[in-house]
């Protein structure tokens, strides 16, 4: 599982699109044909069900990003694009994981979950399903902690972000 630390070259594009079939393919296709890797992508309808927000984290230099932003803007179904500098955005991500912990370590594991404000979603005699919603950087730290145990599965949602108020 990829738990690389969040890199500084990451750019966040927050794209409002019409909630229609094929729109995600149009957007992701623009990145694919230029061989830009999408680091993470989160998409869901907004409070207006006819509009979805796509939060795309890409790892590119700023010059090609300007060109791809302009190309994105040409898509008929794209309504608005904001490029969010990580420092100017509130970012959140959700991580869930299944971990096997030796019986002797159960109490320490529960205590550490508490320090992260992580949640315990499910458990049996030796396994736990835990979740944490936080900044991507905190999730990186949490993932490293989980990795010190027997990590069975880990999944992250990709970032969602909104511009800061000031």
């Amino acid at each position, binding site marked *: 599982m990829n738990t690389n630390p969040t890199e500084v070259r990451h750019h966040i594009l927050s794209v409002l699109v*019409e909630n229609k079939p094929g729109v995600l393919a149009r957007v992701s296709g623009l990145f694919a044909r230029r061989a830009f890797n999408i680091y993470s992508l989160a998409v869901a309808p907004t409070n207006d069900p006819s509009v979805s927000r796509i939060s795309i984290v890409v790892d590119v230099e700023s010059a090609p990003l300007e060109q791809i932003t302009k190309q994105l803007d040409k898509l*008929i179904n794209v309504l608005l694009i904001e490029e969010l500098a990580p420092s100017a955005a509130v970012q959140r991500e959700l991580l869930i994981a299944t971990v096997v912990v030796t019986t002797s370590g159960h109490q320490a594991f529960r205590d550490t979950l508490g320090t992260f404000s992580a949640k315990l979603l499910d458990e049996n005699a030796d396994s736990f399903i835990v979740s944490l919603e936080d900044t991507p950087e905190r999730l990186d730290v949490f993932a490293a902690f989980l990795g010190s145990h027997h990590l069975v599965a880990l999944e992250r949602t990709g970032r969602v972000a909104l511009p800061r108020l000031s």
Partner: protein
Amino acid sequence: MKTNGGAALIKSLELEGVEVIFGLPGGAILPVYDPIIDSPIRHILVRHEQGAGHMAEGYAHATGRPGVAMVTSGPAATNIVTPLADAYMDSVPLVVITGQVGTAGIGTDAFQEVDTVGMTRSITKHNELVTRAEDIPRVIREAFHIATTGRPGPVLVDIPKDIVDPTNPNSAMDWYWPDSVDLPGYNPQMDGDPALIEAAARLILASERPVLYAGGGILKARAAEALTALAELLDIPVVTTLMGRGGIPDDHPLCLGMPGMHGNYTAVMSMQESDLLIALGSRFDDRVTGKLAEFAPHAKIIHVDIDPAELGKVRRPDVGITGDCRLVIEELINALNILGVDSQPDRSSWRSTLSGWQEKYPLKYAQSETGELLKPQFVLEQLRDNTPDDCIVASGVGQHQMWTAQYWKFNHPYTWINSGGLGTMGFAVPAAIGAKVGRPDRMVWAVDGDGCFQMTAQELVTAASERIPVKIAILNNAYLGMVRQWQEMFYEERYSEVYLSPDLPDYKMWAEAMGCVGMRVESPEDVLPAIQRANEIDDRPVVIDFRTDAREKVFPMVPAGKSNSDIVVGE
């Protein structure tokens, strides 16, 4: 009013003012072909779907109105992919309607099914799979709006069979016609920013060696007259790119002709030595810039384009203006008049530099010796000088295309039709047919290569049966000539897979078999009589097989990857 999707589709096309559809029916699109019988829209039955797409392009180039093509699903859709890509690269307004398998069959590998919208997503301005009959009028209205506004381009509408088949309940709908289009994500910016226009005007008025760099966007914006007015107001020379030829008349004293890989010396070097390039509807294509790092090294850039993504894509402008070329030029003329054009620097030394180059480096070729094959440039000069000034000329792609762009005198806009961006061999014959359908009042010639002609010649059957009297001049040098030229110059004359034979096929017999008049010309004195005879034939297509000298190369030439300053004028 109760109707069905198929009838609504044809009705929608009628309301969009469509006068002609280029197409070919098949299984999935069958129900739409029934109401065509009762429609005033003319349908032209092509022999291959690629022909339908290029005809629609030729029609659009010649008329400025959107070309419409309609074909069935699967292989018909794949056959029209090339014209879609061609129209996308050259910003040609097209609406292409493809049939699709019924909605229940989509995704099941049904007979003649392909993922048409998936396949064409990156080569259309927009495309849409319609899944409900009641969406058809709205989607057609939007398709024409998108294709023809902003930066024009092809729009594909994919229509499953069940929603247009009156025997299927899925096709039932109430007729309506939308008053307007509602596309919140699509707002092309037409007017230029006044502050940027004033900044551009000030740069122009301070420039000592300015050049207007006019591209295909001038013609798409119907801005030819505005361009000429701007050039005359400022007394600034103009280069017209391959797609912009005719944007200012070639016989205008300010017109320097075509720049680029096979541009003339003066046009190429004027850009290299310029201190200000005023790019109007042009996109700094690699065929124009040569080695980018050494392109126009001293020039500041004003770049005007309807598509903001073009500004800074290749060369960062000093002033970048998003807007319609015609409107921006008119606004620029106003701004210049307010600032006063009398204060421009003395440009007499720039003018004398340019006229010196024109005198020293004209286009040139050696006439053929007795017994030699025809010189292609000679054939083109004869054709140019013995056709009406407003004759429409279409070409394929290769040497014949470059010679036509060089030697023809485009004294009227919208008379030059070719495949610039995609470089589609076989474009000429169907594009000429489409142009003649759109402009039956004009004489239409196609200048084609023998390699190109073999790719789409079957559409002359379409032209013969529809009585579309286009004229085709094949510059038959028995080779894939441009590839041969590169192999001669850059591969040590190692000719690999470029020989085609001058008489296999026999072009005269082939033309006659397709219902055309066929001629063959082998000596210079027969060139003019053949052209004159062809000009007089107005009831069927004509094909002339001109036997030309394969040793002729297109010059000047900027070798690929080299700086424009390394231009090779000739041997």
